[in-house]
């Protein structure tokens, strides 16, 4: 099997954005996932979000680990470089890539096995370092690619195909990221494109570490009725805490909205995130109240989705460690190599 590139004929009526690109230009090679896999819907949402954001596709770097989910970086943004690294270690590779060039957009896609098991250490530290990237975890509560073992995000109540319980509590990546001080933390559902696309757009624009934990059912191994990561369960228990919109132009920003139901946050690039509360009492910018609120949803068996947490101090790794503005990979050799001159002083200091 070689990789199959989609036929590249251009439909004359396909809309182009300011980059001169059509939606099709944001696609990748044909997916080899199972028919109905949640991950393919996330792929579609990414394509849509990048098209709407009018991203120059080649300025995006697609980073992933190993798993069905991690494969999907090949299924969107053909004009971007992709890096399917090793299992669970995408965060470090993305961090390094970001260090080399702070100007690209880093889009990481991982799975719950890749993130919450083998990759949890790197995940924690990427969050802590505020690496400027959007990290999407396609969370299906199982190891798809290795055929259906439990993952660490699988809920205790949930059963696997053989009817066995997970004996352990699940790891909640959003809570963990909030606890660690992540910048932008959201949860969504692959079946809800309307919610997912704006979250992806805002996550890409956010400067710092942005996490979207997308419940993305595995139709082959974890979509049975007793699974809490099935389409049915999530549809039935989805509790949207708010709606997020990314408002880009100043014209739109001026447009009024029903006061009290919405909170606006201006991002570093001037665009605005408009958060329309659906749950009156939930304020995603208040660290003190959100964890107990999320705990209450959990106890009620609800899956809270939407933007769960936003840290308005947008600051990324580069700002924290004070690297220069120019991408490190673009600095001219002459500025990097000190040359023979300074060696005199160095030699002198070693005599």
């Amino acid at each position: 099997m070689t990789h199959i590139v989609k036929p590249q004929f251009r439909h004359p009526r396909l809309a182009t954005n300011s980059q001169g690109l059509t939606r099709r230009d944001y696609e990748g090679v044909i997916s080899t996932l199972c028919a109905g896999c949640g991950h393919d819907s996330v792929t579609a949402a990414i394509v849509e979000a990048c098209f709407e954001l009018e991203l120059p596709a080649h300025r995006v770097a697609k980073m992933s680990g190993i798993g069905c989910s991690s494969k999907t970086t090949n299924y969107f943004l053909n004009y971007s470089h992709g890096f399917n690294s090793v299992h669970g270690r995408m965060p470090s590779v993305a961090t390094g890539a970001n260090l080399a060039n702070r100007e690209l957009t880093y889009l990481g896609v991982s799975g719950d096995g890749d993130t919450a098991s083998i990759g949890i250490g790197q995940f924690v530290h990427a969050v802590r370092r505020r690496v400027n990237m959007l990290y999407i975890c396609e969370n299906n509560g199982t190891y798809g690619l290795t055929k259906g073992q439990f993952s660490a995000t699988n809920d205790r109540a949930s059963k696997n195909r053989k009817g066995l319980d997970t004996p352990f509590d699940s790891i909640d990546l959003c809570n963990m990221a909030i606890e660690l001080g992540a910048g932008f933390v959201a949860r969504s559902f692959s079946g809800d494109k309307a919610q997912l696309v704006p979250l992806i757009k805002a996550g890409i624009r956010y400067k710092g570490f942005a996490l979207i934990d997308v419940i993305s059912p595995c139709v082959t191994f974890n979509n049975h009725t007793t699974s809490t990561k099935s389409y049915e369960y999530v549809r039935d228990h989805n509790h949207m805490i708010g709606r997020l919109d990314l408002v880009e132009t100043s014209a739109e920003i001026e447009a009024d909205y029903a006061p009290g139901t919405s909170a606006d946050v201006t991002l570093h690039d001037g665009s605005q995130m408009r958060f329309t509360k659906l749950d009156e009492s939930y304020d995603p910018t208040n660290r003190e109240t959100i964890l107990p609120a999320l705990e209450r949803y959990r106890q009620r068996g609800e899956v809270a989705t939407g933007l769960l947490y936003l840290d308005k101090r947008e600051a990324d790794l580069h700002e924290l460690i004070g690297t220069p503005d120019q991408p490190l990979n673009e600095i001219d050799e002459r500025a990097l190599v000190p040359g023979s001159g300074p060696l005199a002083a160095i030699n002198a200091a070693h005599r």
Partner: protein
Amino acid sequence: MSRNTVFNEFVLKFGTVNGSGSASANFLCAKVLFRMGLPVSAKNIFPSNIQGLPTWYEIRVSEAGHMARRAGIDVMVAMNPQSYKRDAAEVVPGGTLIYDSTLERRFDRDDIQVIGIPIARLCAEHWTDSRQRQLFKNMIYVGSLISLLGLDDGVVEQLITEQFKSKPKLIEPNLKALHIGRDYARDNIDTPIAVRARMSDKTAGKILMTGNEAAGLGALYAGATVATWYPITPSTSLVENFERHASKLRRTEDGRHNAAVVQAEDELAAVGMAIGASWNGARAFTATSGPGISLMAEFIGLAYFAEIPLVLFDVQRGGPSTGMPTRTQQSDILTCAYASHGDTVHILLLPGDPGECFTMSVDAFDIADRYQTPVFVMSDLDIGMNDWVIDELTWDDSRKLDRGKVLDAAALDAVAEFARYRDVDGDGIPYRTLPGTHPTKGSYFTRGTSHTDTGGYTEDGRLHAQMLERIKYKIEGAAAHLPKPVIDIRDPEARLAIVNFGSTDPAVREGLEELDREGHVMNHMRLRAFPFAQEVRDFAEAHDYLFVIEQNRDSQMRHLLMTEADILGPKLIAVPNIDGMPLTAAFVREFVLQALRRLPGYGEASRIVAQ
């Protein structure tokens, strides 16, 4: 000074307690001797702990230029009662032991000269603060060496003044302590000691530097901008030196500097970051020691197979496992040469001193970029953390970085089709592109799974085999362009030779001279890189037997010479050393002599004429 005094050839050793401030006093002595024009070699023998345990510092002075460690101490400054017994035992008959006589001690040796200086009492007389009393003890014993050993007064004072430039208040009391020691020894000790230092001129054009500092500087001169690492002895100071020099030599106008140094959460992350940065076009590296290499293995295989440039410094220490973290070995050779599962072979550079740590560090980045593969710089604790006398560092300003085959936007516009893993030039080296270069051309997918020459996923075994064969061919092609072995034909007729690499070189060269004097003339080849150049095979061809000296148990380099340079096993005589100490010429001489006795026809004298 007696008539038999030996000048400028001796070993001076300090036995102290770590965390007591003695380290800088001892280093000061080494610097003084160096500035007196004497080649010195300084070995820091320290415990894997922070405070309160015995630690030693050995300075060998050799006007003749023998810079290997030498056993048998001429002058022992024994400041640590915990180690008195061992310290006294190491002194050569006729040698000297200096101790703090504030409390009475006996050393059970009649054949050495024991000199007591009441250091604690002297301190107590002059200072009241306990920390000061502790610190100035060190300067007192340094002072005593002015009188006893001939350290030059002026040079010492000059160095102290320089050392405390930023804290000038400290100059005065340090000089005071120095003088107390000097004067006490001058006034109270009248029996001269057997060895003495005097001014010479053998260090013109030389500097005293550790390999880690040199390697850090090399990375800086190579234009590295991303250093990602996890602390581990003995590699930590490599990155620290990179950062320190970068913050001065790479300073931007707004006070930042053109480099990112990130302390990762572990070695897996450190190498992952280096790979990510390198993939994205920055020169990036990581530095570690054995345990770190083990942890990096999976990622190294990815870099090899996905053909991502990567520079790794392995500053080797005593293995296996956590082993002897503060001792030296060369025991990661096989691990690095074949790091990671599956078929992998990696380029190793083998610096022989800090000077080569500098040059090979620069080379490593060019080689990694050129061959798009991991390159290991195999240093060790002895080179990395000890101060060695080397030639001044130099830099050829006309040198350009070799960034290898990278296509920019213009080049991409010019090519019909870009295939990331295609051998276009017949050298096995494909072209790469950097993310973000071109709106529609040159993007590809990097993966550790089997791939076609355009980077697409494949499970076609023949394509996979072709890919692996090309990579093998590419790496084999590098052999001719790596640092060549240093070959010393001491006698064109000699049938025997010594092969070594890395930090054992001073001991080997001194050993060769000793063997020579005893009638065993041997040639010498110091390996500097793997895979091996043709010269290595030719040299082996030209000799009957090669003694392969290395600081590991299993004769790992000998393995590689057999399997990768096709040298027959019986020709290669294993000379392993694993006690964790820098090698001595005596070890080389004795081991080789022993082995010679077992070689039919070579036992008596090996100045054997070609048959």
